Protein backbone atom coordinates (compact mmCIF):
# COMPACT_ATOMS: atom_id res chain seq x y z
CA UNK A 1 0.00 0.00 0.00
CA UNK A 2 1.19 3.43 -0.90
CA UNK A 3 2.26 5.90 1.78
CA UNK A 4 -0.10 8.52 0.42
CA UNK A 5 -3.22 7.56 -1.49
CA UNK A 6 -5.42 10.23 -2.99
CA UNK A 7 -8.67 9.31 -4.72
CA UNK A 8 -11.13 11.57 -6.54
CA UNK A 9 -9.89 14.60 -4.72
CA UNK A 10 -11.57 17.86 -5.64
CA UNK A 11 -11.56 21.39 -4.34
CA UNK A 12 -13.96 24.06 -5.55
CA UNK A 13 -13.92 27.77 -4.89
CA UNK A 14 -17.42 28.97 -5.51
CA UNK A 15 -18.11 27.52 -8.95
CA UNK A 16 -14.48 27.20 -9.89
CA UNK A 17 -12.88 23.76 -9.66
CA UNK A 18 -9.25 24.31 -8.67
CA UNK A 19 -8.64 20.58 -8.31
CA UNK A 20 -11.01 17.95 -9.62
CA UNK A 21 -11.13 14.15 -9.58
CA UNK A 22 -7.48 13.93 -8.74
CA UNK A 23 -5.77 10.61 -8.00
CA UNK A 24 -2.26 10.28 -6.68
CA UNK A 25 -0.22 7.44 -5.19
CA UNK A 26 3.09 8.15 -3.58
CA UNK A 27 5.12 5.15 -2.46
CA UNK A 28 7.32 5.13 0.59
CA UNK A 29 10.81 6.35 -0.27
CA UNK A 30 9.80 8.07 -3.47
CA UNK A 31 10.78 11.54 -4.60
CA UNK A 32 7.75 12.65 -6.55
CA UNK A 33 7.65 15.76 -8.67
CA UNK A 34 4.44 17.64 -9.36
CA UNK A 35 4.59 20.11 -12.21
CA UNK A 36 2.13 22.10 -14.24
CA UNK A 37 1.63 25.52 -15.78
CA UNK A 38 0.88 28.54 -13.59
CA UNK A 39 -2.50 28.30 -11.92
CA UNK A 40 -2.83 24.60 -12.71
CA UNK A 41 -3.76 23.78 -9.12
CA UNK A 42 -0.42 22.56 -7.76
CA UNK A 43 -0.43 24.74 -4.68
CA UNK A 44 -4.14 24.14 -4.09
CA UNK A 45 -3.40 20.44 -4.14
CA UNK A 46 -0.72 20.96 -1.49
CA UNK A 47 -3.04 23.09 0.57
CA UNK A 48 -5.70 20.41 0.52
CA UNK A 49 -3.31 17.56 1.39
CA UNK A 50 -1.73 19.52 4.23
CA UNK A 51 -5.11 20.57 5.61
CA UNK A 52 -4.88 24.29 4.88
CA UNK A 53 -8.00 23.91 2.74
CA UNK A 54 -10.81 21.50 3.38
CA UNK A 55 -11.35 19.20 0.36
CA UNK A 56 -14.71 19.49 -1.43
CA UNK A 57 -14.70 15.77 -2.10
CA UNK A 58 -12.57 12.65 -2.30
CA UNK A 59 -10.29 10.81 0.08
CA UNK A 60 -6.73 11.31 1.28
CA UNK A 61 -5.21 8.29 3.00
CA UNK A 62 -1.85 8.69 4.68
CA UNK A 63 -0.27 5.56 6.18
CA UNK A 64 -3.61 3.81 5.98
CA UNK A 65 -5.59 6.49 7.78
CA UNK A 66 -7.70 9.28 6.38
CA UNK A 67 -6.36 12.79 6.86
CA UNK A 68 -8.91 14.59 4.68
CA UNK A 69 -10.38 17.65 6.39
CA UNK A 70 -8.13 17.46 9.45
CA UNK A 71 -6.36 20.49 10.87
CA UNK A 72 -2.87 21.15 9.45
CA UNK A 73 -1.40 20.64 12.92
CA UNK A 74 -3.08 17.25 13.22
CA UNK A 75 -1.79 16.24 9.79
CA UNK A 76 1.70 17.43 10.72
CA UNK A 77 1.44 15.34 13.88
CA UNK A 78 0.70 12.28 11.70
CA UNK A 79 3.96 12.94 9.87
CA UNK A 80 2.99 14.83 6.71
CA UNK A 81 4.63 18.24 6.80
CA UNK A 82 4.72 20.95 4.16
CA UNK A 83 6.72 24.04 3.34
CA UNK A 84 5.39 27.19 1.74
CA UNK A 85 6.00 28.74 -1.62
CA UNK A 86 6.50 32.09 0.06
CA UNK A 87 9.34 32.48 2.51
CA UNK A 88 7.55 31.75 5.76
CA UNK A 89 9.60 32.32 8.90
CA UNK A 90 9.24 33.52 12.44
CA UNK A 91 11.20 36.63 11.67
CA UNK A 92 11.89 37.82 15.19
CA UNK A 93 13.53 34.54 16.22
CA UNK A 94 17.00 33.40 15.23
CA UNK A 95 17.69 30.33 13.11
CA UNK A 96 17.89 28.05 16.13
CA UNK A 97 14.73 29.59 17.56
CA UNK A 98 12.82 28.94 14.35
CA UNK A 99 13.86 25.31 14.24
CA UNK A 100 13.13 24.93 17.95
CA UNK A 101 9.60 26.25 17.53
CA UNK A 102 9.14 23.87 14.63
CA UNK A 103 9.99 21.02 17.03
CA UNK A 104 6.75 21.80 18.79
CA UNK A 105 5.30 18.36 18.07
CA UNK A 106 8.18 16.60 19.77
CA UNK A 107 8.48 18.84 22.78
CA UNK A 108 5.50 18.17 24.94
CA UNK A 109 5.25 20.82 27.58
CA UNK A 110 2.37 21.30 29.98
CA UNK A 111 1.44 24.67 31.35
CA UNK A 112 2.50 23.61 34.85
CA UNK A 113 5.74 22.21 33.54
CA UNK A 114 6.41 25.57 31.94
CA UNK A 115 5.77 27.43 35.19
CA UNK A 116 7.76 25.11 37.44
CA UNK A 117 10.50 24.59 34.87
CA UNK A 118 10.51 20.81 34.60
CA UNK A 119 10.94 20.97 30.85
CA UNK A 120 14.61 21.86 31.04
CA UNK A 121 16.00 18.39 30.30
CA UNK A 122 13.64 17.76 27.42
CA UNK A 123 14.42 21.18 26.04
CA UNK A 124 18.13 20.40 26.06
CA UNK A 125 17.56 17.23 24.03
CA UNK A 126 15.39 19.24 21.72
CA UNK A 127 18.02 21.84 21.16
CA UNK A 128 20.57 19.15 20.35
CA UNK A 129 18.29 17.74 17.70
CA UNK A 130 17.60 21.22 16.34
CA UNK A 131 21.33 21.83 16.01
CA UNK A 132 21.78 18.52 14.18
CA UNK A 133 19.15 19.56 11.68
CA UNK A 134 20.68 22.98 11.25
CA UNK A 135 24.10 21.43 10.61
CA UNK A 136 22.61 18.98 8.13
CA UNK A 137 20.92 21.77 6.16
CA UNK A 138 24.14 23.76 6.29
CA UNK A 139 22.99 26.69 8.38
CA UNK A 140 25.50 26.13 11.18
CA UNK A 141 27.25 29.44 10.57
CA UNK A 142 24.08 31.48 10.87
CA UNK A 143 22.67 29.57 13.84
CA UNK A 144 22.27 32.71 15.91
CA UNK A 145 21.30 35.13 13.15
CA UNK A 146 17.81 36.53 13.20
CA UNK A 147 15.76 34.87 10.49
CA UNK A 148 14.92 38.19 8.89
CA UNK A 149 18.62 38.97 8.37
CA UNK A 150 19.40 35.76 6.50
CA UNK A 151 20.07 35.69 2.77
CA UNK A 152 17.27 34.45 0.56
CA UNK A 153 19.00 31.11 0.01
CA UNK A 154 19.48 30.63 3.72
CA UNK A 155 15.87 31.56 4.42
CA UNK A 156 14.63 28.96 1.96
CA UNK A 157 16.96 26.40 3.49
CA UNK A 158 15.66 27.33 6.93
CA UNK A 159 12.13 26.62 5.70
CA UNK A 160 13.20 23.08 4.89
CA UNK A 161 15.03 22.78 8.20
CA UNK A 162 11.87 23.79 10.05
CA UNK A 163 9.81 21.22 8.20
CA UNK A 164 12.45 18.59 9.05
CA UNK A 165 12.30 19.57 12.69
CA UNK A 166 8.75 18.26 12.79
CA UNK A 167 10.25 14.80 11.99
CA UNK A 168 8.08 14.11 8.95
CA UNK A 169 7.74 10.84 7.10
CA UNK A 170 6.30 12.70 4.14
CA UNK A 171 7.76 16.07 3.27
CA UNK A 172 5.90 18.31 0.84
CA UNK A 173 8.14 20.99 -0.61
CA UNK A 174 6.47 23.88 -2.40
CA UNK A 175 8.98 25.37 -4.86
CA UNK A 176 12.01 24.97 -2.60
CA UNK A 177 14.48 26.44 -5.09
CA UNK A 178 12.39 29.42 -6.19
CA UNK A 179 14.59 32.48 -6.54
CA UNK A 180 17.80 30.63 -5.73
CA UNK A 181 21.06 31.05 -7.60
CA UNK A 182 22.58 27.97 -9.32
CA UNK A 183 24.93 27.05 -6.47
CA UNK A 184 22.18 27.38 -3.87
CA UNK A 185 19.95 25.29 -6.10
CA UNK A 186 22.61 22.60 -6.36
CA UNK A 187 22.96 22.49 -2.57
CA UNK A 188 19.22 22.20 -2.14
CA UNK A 189 19.06 19.40 -4.69
CA UNK A 190 21.70 17.50 -2.74
CA UNK A 191 19.76 18.03 0.45
CA UNK A 192 16.56 16.68 -1.10
CA UNK A 193 18.40 13.58 -2.29
CA UNK A 194 19.94 12.90 1.07
CA UNK A 195 16.61 13.42 2.79
CA UNK A 196 15.60 10.12 1.32
CA UNK A 197 18.93 8.40 1.47
CA UNK A 198 19.98 9.32 5.01
CA UNK A 199 16.71 10.17 6.71
CA UNK A 200 14.31 7.88 4.90
CA UNK A 201 11.87 10.65 4.16
CA UNK A 202 9.45 10.49 1.26
CA UNK A 203 9.34 13.76 -0.68
CA UNK A 204 6.74 15.42 -2.86
CA UNK A 205 8.12 18.32 -4.79
CA UNK A 206 6.09 21.03 -6.46
CA UNK A 207 8.51 22.95 -8.57
CA UNK A 208 8.66 25.42 -11.37
CA UNK A 209 12.30 24.87 -12.09
CA UNK A 210 12.22 21.99 -14.60
CA UNK A 211 15.87 21.19 -14.31
CA UNK A 212 15.56 20.47 -10.60
CA UNK A 213 12.51 18.31 -11.05
CA UNK A 214 14.00 16.30 -13.86
CA UNK A 215 17.18 16.00 -11.86
CA UNK A 216 15.92 14.64 -8.55
CA UNK A 217 12.56 13.00 -9.23
CA UNK A 218 12.20 9.53 -10.68
CA UNK A 219 8.49 9.96 -11.17
CA UNK A 220 6.60 13.09 -12.18
CA UNK A 221 2.92 13.95 -12.14
CA UNK A 222 1.73 16.70 -14.45
CA UNK A 223 -1.32 18.64 -13.46
CA UNK A 224 -3.29 21.06 -15.62
CA UNK A 225 -6.63 22.76 -14.97
CA UNK A 226 -6.81 20.87 -11.68
CA UNK A 227 -6.67 17.48 -13.37
CA UNK A 228 -3.97 14.93 -13.86
CA UNK A 229 -2.53 15.27 -17.33
CA UNK A 230 0.24 12.70 -17.28
CA UNK A 231 2.39 10.64 -14.97
CA UNK A 232 5.67 8.88 -15.55
CA UNK A 233 9.45 9.04 -15.55
CA UNK A 234 11.13 12.29 -16.57
CA UNK A 235 11.88 10.88 -20.01
CA UNK A 236 8.27 9.89 -20.58
CA UNK A 237 7.06 13.29 -19.44
CA UNK A 238 9.41 15.23 -21.70
CA UNK A 239 8.24 13.28 -24.72
CA UNK A 240 4.53 13.33 -23.81
CA UNK A 241 2.59 15.29 -26.40
CA UNK A 242 -0.18 16.37 -24.02
CA UNK A 243 2.38 17.85 -21.68
CA UNK A 244 4.19 19.73 -24.41
CA UNK A 245 0.92 21.08 -25.69
CA UNK A 246 -0.18 22.18 -22.25
CA UNK A 247 3.02 24.04 -21.69
CA UNK A 248 3.05 25.59 -25.15
CA UNK A 249 -0.57 26.59 -24.68
CA UNK A 250 0.30 28.55 -21.61
CA UNK A 251 2.95 31.19 -21.27
CA UNK A 252 5.38 28.73 -19.79
CA UNK A 253 7.79 27.18 -22.22
CA UNK A 254 8.98 23.77 -21.22
CA UNK A 255 12.40 24.33 -22.70
CA UNK A 256 12.98 27.58 -20.89
CA UNK A 257 15.38 26.08 -18.41
CA UNK A 258 16.79 23.34 -20.58
Amino acid at each position, binding site marked *: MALLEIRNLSKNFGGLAAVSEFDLDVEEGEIRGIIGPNGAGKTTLFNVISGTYRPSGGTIIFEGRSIAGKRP*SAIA*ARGAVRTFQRTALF*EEFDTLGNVS*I*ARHLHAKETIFG*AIIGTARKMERANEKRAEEIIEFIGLGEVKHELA*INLSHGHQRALNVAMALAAEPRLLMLDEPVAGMNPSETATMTDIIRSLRKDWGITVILVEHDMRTVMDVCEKITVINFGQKLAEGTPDEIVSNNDVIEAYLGSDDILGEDF
Partner: protein
Amino acid sequence: MKNPNGAASTPAGGSALPTPSAAASNPDWRRKYGGWIAVIAILAALCVIPFYMKFYHIELSIIYFMSVILAVSYRLITTTGDWSFAHIILQGIGAYATALLAKHVGIPFIVMVPLAGLVTAAVGAIVMFPMLRTKGFAFFIASFAFGEFIRMVWMKVNNPFGGTGGIVNIPSPELFGLKLTSSVNYYFACMAFMVAAVFIMWRLDRSRIGNAWKAIHTDDMLAECMGVNVARYRTLAFVVGSFFAGIAGALLAYRMGSIDPHNFEITQMVYLVIWVVIGGASTFWGPLIGVTILTVAFEWSRPLLEWRPLMFGSLLIMFLIFLPGGLESLLPALRRPPGEHYARFRRWLTTFRPG
Protein backbone atom coordinates in the same frame (compact mmCIF):
# COMPACT_ATOMS: atom_id res chain seq x y z
CA MET B 1 12.96 48.17 35.60
CA LYS B 2 16.04 47.84 33.48
CA ASN B 3 17.64 44.94 35.24
CA PRO B 4 14.90 42.35 34.97
CA ASN B 5 15.79 42.25 31.30
CA GLY B 6 19.07 40.83 32.47
CA ALA B 7 17.21 38.21 34.43
CA ALA B 8 15.52 37.22 31.23
CA SER B 9 18.79 36.04 29.78
CA THR B 10 19.94 33.98 32.74
CA PRO B 11 19.73 30.23 32.52
CA ALA B 12 17.12 30.44 35.26
CA GLY B 13 14.48 30.62 32.59
CA GLY B 14 15.33 27.01 31.93
CA SER B 15 12.81 26.22 29.27
CA ALA B 16 13.52 29.39 27.36
CA LEU B 17 14.81 29.10 23.88
CA PRO B 18 18.37 30.25 23.81
CA THR B 19 18.80 33.83 22.73
CA PRO B 20 22.09 34.88 21.20
CA SER B 21 23.26 36.48 24.41
CA ALA B 22 22.41 33.43 26.49
CA ALA B 23 23.97 30.93 24.18
CA ALA B 24 27.28 32.76 24.05
CA SER B 25 28.22 31.74 27.56
CA ASN B 26 28.78 34.88 29.52
CA PRO B 27 30.81 34.43 32.68
CA ASP B 28 29.94 37.91 33.90
CA TRP B 29 28.09 37.34 37.19
CA ARG B 30 26.35 40.70 36.97
CA ARG B 31 24.72 39.64 33.80
CA LYS B 32 23.85 36.31 35.26
CA TYR B 33 22.45 37.30 38.61
CA GLY B 34 21.96 41.06 38.24
CA GLY B 35 18.35 40.65 37.24
CA TRP B 36 17.53 38.47 40.21
CA ILE B 37 19.28 40.85 42.56
CA ALA B 38 17.28 43.75 41.17
CA VAL B 39 14.02 41.84 41.49
CA ILE B 40 14.80 40.90 45.11
CA ALA B 41 15.76 44.49 45.86
CA ILE B 42 12.50 45.80 44.42
CA LEU B 43 10.51 43.20 46.36
CA ALA B 44 12.34 44.07 49.56
CA ALA B 45 11.60 47.73 48.97
CA LEU B 46 7.93 46.93 48.35
CA CYS B 47 7.86 45.05 51.64
CA VAL B 48 9.29 47.96 53.59
CA ILE B 49 7.70 51.05 52.07
CA PRO B 50 4.08 50.54 53.22
CA PHE B 51 5.24 51.17 56.79
CA TYR B 52 6.48 54.60 55.77
CA MET B 53 3.70 55.54 53.36
CA LYS B 54 0.63 57.62 53.93
CA PHE B 55 -2.70 55.80 53.96
CA TYR B 56 -3.60 57.32 50.62
CA HIS B 57 -0.45 56.06 48.94
CA ILE B 58 -0.97 52.56 50.27
CA GLU B 59 -4.43 52.56 48.73
CA LEU B 60 -2.89 53.77 45.50
CA SER B 61 -0.32 50.96 45.59
CA ILE B 62 -3.09 48.41 46.04
CA ILE B 63 -4.78 49.70 42.89
CA TYR B 64 -1.38 49.69 41.21
CA PHE B 65 -0.87 46.00 41.99
CA MET B 66 -4.23 45.19 40.41
CA SER B 67 -3.30 47.29 37.40
CA VAL B 68 -0.06 45.36 37.05
CA ILE B 69 -1.91 42.04 37.01
CA LEU B 70 -4.34 43.43 34.44
CA ALA B 71 -1.70 44.92 32.17
CA VAL B 72 0.59 41.88 32.22
CA SER B 73 -2.28 39.45 31.63
CA TYR B 74 -3.63 41.63 28.82
CA ARG B 75 -0.25 41.66 27.17
CA LEU B 76 -0.10 37.87 27.50
CA ILE B 77 -3.22 37.58 25.36
CA THR B 78 -1.82 39.99 22.79
CA THR B 79 1.27 37.81 22.26
CA THR B 80 -0.83 35.61 19.99
CA GLY B 81 -1.86 38.70 18.00
CA ASP B 82 -5.34 38.73 19.53
CA TRP B 83 -5.94 42.26 20.77
CA SER B 84 -9.01 41.95 22.93
CA PHE B 85 -11.27 44.81 23.96
CA ALA B 86 -12.96 42.85 26.72
CA HIS B 87 -10.23 42.50 29.30
CA ILE B 88 -11.89 44.88 31.75
CA ILE B 89 -15.11 42.89 31.34
CA LEU B 90 -13.18 39.76 32.29
CA GLN B 91 -11.98 41.57 35.37
CA GLY B 92 -15.63 42.37 36.01
CA ILE B 93 -16.55 38.70 35.78
CA GLY B 94 -14.02 37.94 38.49
CA ALA B 95 -15.38 40.81 40.56
CA TYR B 96 -19.00 39.74 40.16
CA ALA B 97 -18.12 36.11 40.90
CA THR B 98 -16.39 37.25 44.07
CA ALA B 99 -19.22 39.52 45.11
CA LEU B 100 -21.85 36.84 44.63
CA LEU B 101 -19.98 33.86 46.02
CA ALA B 102 -18.38 35.63 48.95
CA LYS B 103 -21.66 37.25 49.88
CA HIS B 104 -24.13 34.44 49.38
CA VAL B 105 -22.01 31.31 49.79
CA GLY B 106 -19.51 32.72 52.22
CA ILE B 107 -16.37 31.44 50.54
CA PRO B 108 -13.26 32.72 52.35
CA PHE B 109 -10.82 35.17 50.75
CA ILE B 110 -7.92 32.80 50.15
CA VAL B 111 -10.14 30.35 48.28
CA MET B 112 -12.26 32.98 46.59
CA VAL B 113 -9.51 34.82 44.77
CA PRO B 114 -8.22 31.81 42.81
CA LEU B 115 -11.78 30.61 42.40
CA ALA B 116 -12.73 33.95 40.82
CA GLY B 117 -9.82 33.38 38.46
CA LEU B 118 -11.14 29.93 37.56
CA VAL B 119 -14.68 31.21 36.99
CA THR B 120 -13.35 33.96 34.73
CA ALA B 121 -11.15 31.47 32.89
CA ALA B 122 -14.18 29.29 32.28
CA VAL B 123 -16.21 32.23 30.95
CA GLY B 124 -13.17 33.24 28.88
CA ALA B 125 -13.02 29.77 27.34
CA ILE B 126 -16.72 29.87 26.47
CA VAL B 127 -16.50 33.34 24.92
CA MET B 128 -13.30 32.49 23.06
CA PHE B 129 -14.84 29.50 21.35
CA PRO B 130 -16.96 31.50 18.87
CA MET B 131 -14.38 34.27 18.67
CA LEU B 132 -11.77 31.82 17.37
CA ARG B 133 -13.37 32.24 13.97
CA THR B 134 -12.20 35.84 13.88
CA LYS B 135 -8.76 37.34 13.98
CA GLY B 136 -7.10 40.72 13.77
CA PHE B 137 -9.47 43.65 13.74
CA ALA B 138 -12.54 41.41 13.53
CA PHE B 139 -11.43 39.68 16.73
CA PHE B 140 -11.04 43.03 18.38
CA ILE B 141 -14.54 44.16 17.42
CA ALA B 142 -16.01 40.77 18.30
CA SER B 143 -14.47 40.90 21.77
CA PHE B 144 -15.90 44.40 22.10
CA ALA B 145 -19.35 43.08 21.17
CA PHE B 146 -19.21 40.11 23.53
CA GLY B 147 -17.88 42.28 26.33
CA GLU B 148 -20.56 44.95 25.92
CA PHE B 149 -23.19 42.24 25.84
CA ILE B 150 -21.98 40.85 29.15
CA ARG B 151 -21.90 44.34 30.64
CA MET B 152 -25.44 45.00 29.52
CA VAL B 153 -26.52 41.72 31.12
CA TRP B 154 -25.14 43.04 34.41
CA MET B 155 -27.02 46.28 33.89
CA LYS B 156 -30.25 44.60 32.95
CA VAL B 157 -30.44 41.61 35.26
CA ASN B 158 -31.32 42.59 38.81
CA ASN B 159 -31.19 39.12 40.25
CA PRO B 160 -28.41 38.22 40.93
CA PHE B 161 -26.32 41.04 39.40
CA GLY B 162 -28.18 43.96 40.96
CA GLY B 163 -28.71 45.89 37.72
CA THR B 164 -27.12 49.31 37.37
CA GLY B 165 -26.83 49.59 41.14
CA GLY B 166 -24.51 46.58 41.23
CA ILE B 167 -23.76 44.54 44.33
CA VAL B 168 -23.08 46.13 47.70
CA ASN B 169 -21.94 44.82 51.07
CA ILE B 170 -19.34 42.40 49.83
CA PRO B 171 -17.89 40.78 52.98
CA SER B 172 -14.55 42.18 54.01
CA PRO B 173 -11.61 39.89 53.36
CA GLU B 174 -10.08 37.85 56.14
CA LEU B 175 -7.05 35.61 56.04
CA PHE B 176 -6.84 32.97 58.80
CA GLY B 177 -8.49 35.31 61.26
CA LEU B 178 -6.39 38.27 60.16
CA LYS B 179 -8.55 41.19 59.05
CA LEU B 180 -7.47 42.41 55.63
CA THR B 181 -9.53 45.57 55.88
CA SER B 182 -6.47 47.35 57.17
CA SER B 183 -4.64 48.93 54.27
CA VAL B 184 -1.23 47.52 55.10
CA ASN B 185 -2.54 43.98 55.43
CA TYR B 186 -4.43 44.19 52.18
CA TYR B 187 -1.37 45.73 50.55
CA PHE B 188 0.62 42.60 51.33
CA ALA B 189 -2.16 40.29 50.22
CA CYS B 190 -2.39 42.07 46.88
CA MET B 191 1.35 42.19 46.54
CA ALA B 192 1.57 38.44 47.08
CA PHE B 193 -0.98 37.80 44.36
CA MET B 194 0.71 40.30 42.06
CA VAL B 195 4.15 38.74 42.50
CA ALA B 196 2.78 35.24 41.97
CA ALA B 197 0.82 36.31 38.89
CA VAL B 198 3.74 38.16 37.33
CA PHE B 199 6.12 35.29 38.06
CA ILE B 200 3.80 32.71 36.49
CA MET B 201 3.18 34.82 33.41
CA TRP B 202 6.88 35.53 33.08
CA ARG B 203 7.65 31.82 33.11
CA LEU B 204 4.94 31.19 30.53
CA ASP B 205 6.19 34.01 28.34
CA ARG B 206 9.66 32.50 28.19
CA SER B 207 8.48 28.92 27.79
CA ARG B 208 7.84 26.89 24.69
CA ILE B 209 4.16 27.72 25.11
CA GLY B 210 5.00 31.44 25.07
CA ASN B 211 7.08 30.94 21.94
CA ALA B 212 4.20 29.12 20.28
CA TRP B 213 1.99 32.12 21.06
CA LYS B 214 4.50 34.49 19.50
CA ALA B 215 4.85 32.19 16.51
CA ILE B 216 1.08 32.36 15.98
CA HIS B 217 1.33 36.13 16.07
CA THR B 218 4.01 36.20 13.38
CA ASP B 219 2.49 33.66 11.03
CA ASP B 220 -0.44 31.57 12.21
CA MET B 221 -0.54 29.49 9.03
CA LEU B 222 3.11 28.54 9.33
CA ALA B 223 2.72 27.77 13.03
CA GLU B 224 -0.26 25.53 12.29
CA CYS B 225 1.66 23.63 9.61
CA MET B 226 4.57 23.14 12.02
CA GLY B 227 2.17 21.33 14.32
CA VAL B 228 1.00 24.12 16.61
CA ASN B 229 -2.73 23.74 17.13
CA VAL B 230 -3.48 27.42 16.65
CA ALA B 231 -7.05 27.27 17.96
CA ARG B 232 -5.96 25.50 21.12
CA TYR B 233 -3.07 27.83 21.81
CA ARG B 234 -5.06 30.98 21.15
CA THR B 235 -7.70 29.68 23.54
CA LEU B 236 -5.03 28.83 26.08
CA ALA B 237 -3.63 32.35 25.97
CA PHE B 238 -7.08 33.87 26.32
CA VAL B 239 -7.99 31.55 29.19
CA VAL B 240 -4.76 32.21 31.08
CA GLY B 241 -5.22 35.96 30.55
CA SER B 242 -8.82 35.66 31.74
CA PHE B 243 -7.72 33.78 34.84
CA PHE B 244 -5.46 36.59 35.98
CA ALA B 245 -7.96 39.28 34.99
CA GLY B 246 -10.44 37.46 37.22
CA ILE B 247 -7.96 37.53 40.09
CA ALA B 248 -7.54 41.27 39.63
CA GLY B 249 -11.33 41.53 39.67
CA ALA B 250 -11.60 39.59 42.92
CA LEU B 251 -9.02 41.84 44.56
CA LEU B 252 -10.94 44.89 43.31
CA ALA B 253 -14.30 43.61 44.58
CA TYR B 254 -12.91 42.93 48.05
CA ARG B 255 -11.30 46.35 48.22
CA MET B 256 -14.28 48.34 47.05
CA GLY B 257 -16.89 46.42 49.01
CA SER B 258 -19.34 47.13 46.22
CA ILE B 259 -19.24 46.88 42.46
CA ASP B 260 -21.44 48.01 39.61
CA PRO B 261 -21.29 47.89 35.80
CA HIS B 262 -19.76 51.36 35.61
CA ASN B 263 -16.53 50.03 37.10
CA PHE B 264 -15.98 48.09 33.90
CA GLU B 265 -16.74 50.65 31.23
CA ILE B 266 -14.92 51.13 27.95
CA THR B 267 -13.05 54.09 29.38
CA GLN B 268 -11.31 51.72 31.79
CA MET B 269 -10.44 49.45 28.89
CA VAL B 270 -8.97 52.37 26.99
CA TYR B 271 -6.74 53.22 29.94
CA LEU B 272 -5.58 49.61 30.02
CA VAL B 273 -4.73 49.84 26.32
CA ILE B 274 -2.89 53.09 27.01
CA TRP B 275 -0.73 51.39 29.67
CA VAL B 276 0.17 48.54 27.38
CA VAL B 277 0.73 50.59 24.22
CA ILE B 278 2.77 53.27 25.95
CA GLY B 279 4.81 50.67 27.80
CA GLY B 280 5.21 48.53 24.70
CA ALA B 281 3.67 45.13 24.12
CA SER B 282 6.56 43.35 22.44
CA THR B 283 8.39 42.38 25.61
CA PHE B 284 7.20 41.13 28.93
CA TRP B 285 8.45 44.18 30.79
CA GLY B 286 6.87 46.83 28.54
CA PRO B 287 3.40 46.82 30.16
CA LEU B 288 5.02 46.89 33.61
CA ILE B 289 6.93 50.01 32.63
CA GLY B 290 3.80 51.53 31.13
CA VAL B 291 1.57 50.82 34.10
CA THR B 292 4.18 52.12 36.54
CA ILE B 293 4.87 55.38 34.75
CA LEU B 294 1.23 56.05 33.96
CA THR B 295 0.04 55.34 37.49
CA VAL B 296 2.43 58.04 38.65
CA ALA B 297 1.41 60.37 35.82
CA PHE B 298 -2.22 59.71 36.61
CA GLU B 299 -1.71 60.78 40.20
CA TRP B 300 0.19 63.90 39.22
CA SER B 301 -2.64 64.87 36.91
CA ARG B 302 -5.18 64.77 39.73
CA PRO B 303 -5.51 68.58 39.87
CA LEU B 304 -6.40 68.50 36.17
CA LEU B 305 -9.09 65.89 36.57
CA GLU B 306 -11.34 67.13 33.77
CA TRP B 307 -8.46 67.38 31.32
CA ARG B 308 -7.25 63.86 31.98
CA PRO B 309 -8.91 62.09 29.02
CA LEU B 310 -7.59 64.78 26.72
CA MET B 311 -4.06 64.50 28.09
CA PHE B 312 -3.88 60.74 28.05
CA GLY B 313 -5.74 60.57 24.75
CA SER B 314 -3.20 62.88 23.15
CA LEU B 315 -0.41 60.86 24.71
CA LEU B 316 -1.79 57.66 23.18
CA ILE B 317 -2.08 59.30 19.76
CA MET B 318 1.51 60.55 20.01
CA PHE B 319 2.80 57.12 20.96
CA LEU B 320 0.86 55.29 18.25
CA ILE B 321 2.24 57.68 15.67
CA PHE B 322 5.78 58.35 16.82
CA LEU B 323 6.76 55.45 19.07
CA PRO B 324 4.60 52.45 18.23
CA GLY B 325 7.00 50.15 20.09
CA GLY B 326 6.27 51.97 23.33
CA LEU B 327 8.69 53.18 25.98
CA GLU B 328 10.09 49.70 26.25
CA SER B 329 11.53 50.04 22.75
CA LEU B 330 13.75 52.87 23.98
CA LEU B 331 15.28 51.01 26.90
CA PRO B 332 17.40 48.21 25.49
CA ALA B 333 18.12 50.06 22.26
CA LEU B 334 21.85 49.94 22.84
CA ARG B 335 21.99 46.30 23.76
CA ARG B 336 20.14 44.84 20.81
CA PRO B 337 21.51 44.24 17.34
CA PRO B 338 20.02 46.75 14.92
CA GLY B 339 18.36 44.02 12.88
CA GLU B 340 16.15 43.16 15.78
CA HIS B 341 14.73 46.65 15.81
CA TYR B 342 13.88 46.26 12.21
CA ALA B 343 12.27 42.89 12.90
CA ARG B 344 10.17 44.38 15.68
CA PHE B 345 9.25 47.32 13.54
CA ARG B 346 8.21 45.07 10.72
CA ARG B 347 6.22 42.93 13.07
CA TRP B 348 4.43 45.92 14.49
CA LEU B 349 3.61 47.20 11.02
CA THR B 350 2.24 43.92 9.84
CA THR B 351 0.61 42.89 13.08
CA PHE B 352 -2.99 43.59 12.37
CA ARG B 353 -4.24 42.28 9.13
CA PRO B 354 -7.92 42.53 8.32
CA GLY B 355 -9.68 39.33 9.30
